[in-house]
């Protein structure tokens, strides 16, 4: 989705379950939670709040 990163709810190294909210984005003046596609550990977070993102951009990696 095209939009702006609003907040990052988790840190690198955090354990997340599937469907946990990792990042909150803003698009069309609404907040959209971006959830974890799987359970695991957050390895890297590629973006920071305020950053604009495009369709297909990598936001974070989970292992």
């Amino acid at each position: 989705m095209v939009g702006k990163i609003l907040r990052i709810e988790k840190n690198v190294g955090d354990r997340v379950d599937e469907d946990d909210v990792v990042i909150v984005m803003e698009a069309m003046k609404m907040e959209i939670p971006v959830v974890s596609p799987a359970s695991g550990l957050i390895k890297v977070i590629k973006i920071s709040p305020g950053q604009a993102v495009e369709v297909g951009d990598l936001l974070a990696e989970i292992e």
Partner: protein
Amino acid sequence: MGLSHLEAGQVLMMLIGSLLLYLGIRRGFEPLLLLPIGFGAILVNIPQAELMEEGGVLRFFYDTGILTEVFPILIFIGIGAMTDFQPLLENPKIILLGAAGQFGIFLTLLLALALGFDKLEAVAVAIIGACDGPTAIYVSSKYAPHLLGAVSVAAYSYMSLVPLIQPPIMRLLTTEREKKIVMGIEKRPVSKTTKILFPVVVTIAASLIAPLGTPLIGMVMLGNLMRESGVVERLKNASENEITNIVTLLLGLSIGATMEAAKFLRVETLMVLGLGFIAISLDTVMGVLFGKLMCFLTGGRINPLIGAAGISAFPMSARVVQVEGQRYNKKNYLLMHALSANASGQIGSIVAAGIMLSVLKGMGIV
């Protein structure tokens, strides 16, 4: 003294005007429109002030801007200058949903005729189903100006109520499995040439199909061409800001001025409000059903929920789809797809209005 001439109906209308002011100022519902409409409604119900009589100032705005259809037409240029049709161009097959979302207009037309509305009044009532304020104002000012107040209040209220009206219908009509369909990214690059050609091609094609819709689609696309061409930044900015702002103020006041107690406090007004609600609900029903058909034809690659965004209420309706989709599947991001449908709905409502008028003209009704 005016006070001794004050009638109960006028007091009631002033209260309704105040309610519109409250909704605009305190609740943030379409304040740019509700504030001038509400205030206009109060002014026109003051006895002996005669603002809507021959020579009155509100009558002047109404005669010059509404009866001539100039105000809504000018608003359309601004809408075109503000709208980015990119989401639509990226995913052209979604345009079908923008057509399906207009069926409420036609179904409501039949219903209004069955309820005994005069033919021209039925047209004005049905157009609330376009879910598009300026289109509704244009059509009703042209064919049934005495219903303008009721039609525009209905159109704008229901547009702001889209987040309440649509979700129950969407939930009811889709299966658990359909609600959870994740739609992949289908993004094709759109060249600048395409974006410039789009308004010209759409104007010619749509106007040939529905000549009576030409003033509407023509003005929207003129505004859009100014935006996309990038060579008339000044005209584009003026359309988007100064012209739209001035016209919005005068348009709102003039609409408020049609809300005189004797003309507004009628059973007809309640029927207009009721039918308008039905029109928007039927749009949603038809959009979602068509979404289900597309889902079936594409082997389950389209989430039928985005069909609800095939109406003109932009971007409210696309937001509703995003929220609903994520309610059933947290990993679902339907916003971009819904925006494509929503942008099609904006064009769809104008074309549908044009088609309806052209058909009625062919039948000798308008």
